[in-house]
């Protein structure tokens, strides 16, 4: 099968567009979705309480009204911290549980298919930031996978940051196990990890929940599916992979029917290159 030209959705007919919009591809499985929203919920609890805990006036990181508000809400610093600890440990436990349980079935394939950077991604990374600043308007972006290169990079930040939080948090919470110097180092680690993730989350949330082009992406986090149209527009490479998969499947089915009809079995066609 000849490979279709990529990045050419503008010339698609309206009928085809409609068909594409109705056709759905599965982008996220249930495990992903649940883990994602669990993560969202935990972060919604951990981030504000965490910020409210840091009270050092010398650092001046969190606004005093926020410290006061949360301390009053929880009945004192100790309760606030205990709440943060409890939710934090719950978060760590569930997340680790999910990742470890689905490590081979979900996490490794996910990491391989969606996190490795290829040439296109690097090209994208070279172009996109400049375009966002209004430069290099004429240059077309290379087609992207299920995640674009920015998302892929951010995934690394998230994974490393999460590990940083998971290590530094318990160091501070289990205060008798570690010497003070470790607890002193754990603090900045905790916060750098959090803020690295938060810096990305601002864009992630904006793109996912506010940016109109990405509406589908937002709803896909509930249903798990995106339309073929969306896939083709935003993650063209992944779209064509999906199409290829379908075509392979059709051929397979056709072969099976043929062989069932008693015809000479033909060798399966060699898989096309990328």
């Amino acid at each position, binding site marked *: 099968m000849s490979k279709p030209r990529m990045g050419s959705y503008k010339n698609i007919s309206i009928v085809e567009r409609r068909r594409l919009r109705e056709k759905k591809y599965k982008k996220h499985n249930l495990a992903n979705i649940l883990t994602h929203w669990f993560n969202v919920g935990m972060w919604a609890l951990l981030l504000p309480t965490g910020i409210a805990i840091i009270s050092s006036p010398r650092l001046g990181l969190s606004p005093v009204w926020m410290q006061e508000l949360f301390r009053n809400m929880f009945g004192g610093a*100790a309760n606030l911290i205990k709440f943060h600890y409890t939710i934090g440990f719950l978060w760590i436990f569930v997340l680790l549980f999910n990742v470890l349980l689905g490590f081979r079935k979900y996490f490794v394939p996910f990491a391989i298919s969606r996190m490795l950077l290829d040439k296109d991604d690097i090209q994208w990374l070279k172009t996109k930031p400049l375009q966002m600043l209004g430069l290099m308007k004429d240059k077309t972006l290379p087609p992207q996978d299920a995640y674009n290169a920015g998302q892929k990079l951010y995934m690394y930040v998230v994974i490393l940051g999460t590990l940083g939080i998971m290590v530094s948090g318990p160091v501070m919470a289990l205060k008798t196990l570690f010497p003070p110097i470790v607890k002193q180092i754990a603090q900045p680690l905790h916060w750098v990890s959090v803020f690295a993730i938060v810096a990305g989350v*601002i864009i992630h949330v904006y793109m996912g929940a506010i940016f109109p082009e990405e509406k589908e992406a937002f709803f896909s986090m509930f249903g798990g599916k995106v339309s073929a149209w969306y896939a083709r527009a935003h993650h063209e490479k992944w779209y064509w992979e999906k199409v290829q998969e379908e075509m392979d499947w059709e051929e397979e089915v056709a072969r099976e029917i043929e062989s069932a009809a008693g015809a000479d079995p033909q060798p399966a066609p060699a898989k096309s290159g990328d």
Partner: protein
Amino acid sequence: MADKKRYGFVIDISRCIDCRACQVACSLENSVPLNHTRIWIHDQGVQGTFPKLSRTFVPYNCMHCEHPPCIEVCVSGATYKDPNNGLVLVDQEACIGCGFCVEACPYDARYLDEKLGVVDKCNGCIQRVEIGQKPACVATCLGGSRLFGDLNDPASDVSIALKNAKSLFRLDIEGKDIDTDPNIYFINAPQSLTSLVTSDAFKQQGQAVPREPKYTISEEGWKKVLVPAIAAGIGASFLVQATYFTKQLIEGEKEFDE
């Protein structure tokens, strides 16, 4: 507010005999571990040449400062100044035992309890004061050197002692960013004393009280490098999304609508 308390100590230096009953009483009252102490008696050592000698003892503990450097560095808000009585206290459940405050206290009045993994210090025996008793050290002071009470109340022991004091000094630290304004008032000291306690000789012995607040490398680096970096990072990412969003508002949504 007239009825707001400001608890503090007045220590009559002329009356301290270095018997250390206060220290033992404190250890028991507050279950202080055997390798730590909450209160100290600073021994000036024998001064002068035989037989013209003098020796002065300066009992002290947490100064319950008006502007405590320890609170400045406490990340978890465990250390706080009680708004009702002015005592500097530690909420040990909130404390993570990182020890920033131990370094920051110019009076070395704090210690880390290794067993509990938290910081501990003089709490003015608030558990006793609340039920009308004197702090353990004050109650048992044989020489009558230690006094405790409400500095705002003119009829309290401390206010009366201050009024009758022959001399008065505090171990105040005033600097660029710091003015501890301590609430221990030392009275009736020999004239030479203020300078002695902070003298270079004592500093060399590592016994200087008070000393400059210390900030650990992690705390210092944290403040000077990481905090700005984080602020920059978050600022930048916000800027990116804001630019994008504004651009979109101006240029209008493209090519996605039918």
